[in-house]
């Protein structure tokens, strides 16, 4: 359900969120919070090998 997933770094050079597109034409920016449902879902897809999150550019 997520495409074009990519980490985004903050001013300190460390990842601060994951940006991705949603299939319904929406865009989402997800904080790195284990209590955030979107973060839980996207990391589950990564663990299952269904999604790769690109490193920050």
């Amino acid at each position, binding site marked *: *359900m997520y495409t074009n997933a990519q980490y*985004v770094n*903050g001013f300190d050079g460390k990842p*601060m969120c994951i940006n991705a597109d949603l299939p319904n*034409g*929406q*865009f989402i*920016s997800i904080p790195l919070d284990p*209590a*955030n449902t979107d973060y839980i879902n996207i990391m589950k897809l990564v663990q299952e090998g269904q999604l790769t999150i690109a490193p920050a550019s």
Partner: protein
Amino acid sequence: MSFSINGTTGITFNDSTNMATAASLGPRNRIINGNMLIDQRNSGASVTASTTGATTYTIDRWSYYTTQASKFTIQQNAGSVTPPSGFNKYLGFTSSSSYTVTSTDLITTLQWIEGYNVADLNFGTANAKTITLSFWAYSSLTGTFAGSVIGTNGSTFRSYVFTFSIASANTWTYITVTIPGDTTTFSYNTTNGQGLALSFNLGCGSNYQTTAGSWTSSNYYSTSGAQNIVSTNGATFYITGVQLEVGSVATPYQFNTYSDQLAQCQRYCFRPTGTSNVNFLSSSGSWTGTVVGFASGSFPVPMRALPSLTTDSSTLSNYAVYTPSTSIFNPVTSLSVNGVTGTFNYAITFGTASGGTAGTGAYLAQNSQTTYGLYWSAEL
């Protein structure tokens, strides 16, 4: 007003309503937006979930999960029937086809209740409390329907499937279901994660069916023989006045003021809105360079967890940065949840192709707050 008291039903008022437990005297409904009034995301528009294996939010706090794409249209006040007395809104599902479910199919609408809000039920212990569900249901179909209450410890589930009957088609029917507390030892989540879910079955296969009327391990949503609404093209299923409370007697629906109910919803979803539609300025901030800056603001109530930022359009040029000192709107090229975002305040890092001067004020603007809105989500 007169009333009577006895040892079975507690206090009975002269309008035949009951209060059987002291818990009935305070805020008692564990369901948020049970009267289907708040719809921040869609503002009453119809939703068709085209994504399978994922959750789609319809009106506030109510989600829809499906393993099959585009099987229902979902809308506040779908079909424009008259709601039951005392209500103005309902949540409506209309089947888009005649689909026969397979064993692995699951189509359901549900609301997860935050663990904090069900911690007092003592589920998973010998002191688990009885709960009662009440709601109004309306369907073009008749017969036995099913739903379930589901709990989790974060990795495994417990569930209780219940059934209810609608005898007359296209007629609002008041349903009450009393559910014993789950006394089987289990570590129900009692903090800010998923606590209990209330689910209504729209179509599910045998893998998600079990015997109704008892608590069991795993997550089940229906029972054999119950209506699968998805099987009938054009079939409707509407609900409102959903209340889940402690005790064995259903009390009248607990109405909240609009502002209280909106605030309850905004712990899980906050969509900034304003009076200006075109070029709506949703938050203010500052340029930190020529092509980058931030916009920040406060949430109306603390979010449940650090929230995600979702834009209605992935075409970010529908959003812009407005610089008051130049009166210029610069299209956005990137938006990101800033690392300082918390549950009380947020910051959005924005990027543009040009237009900034470090230190000057800026606003994040939307071409249209309705078509190109954005919202914060900390749903369960």
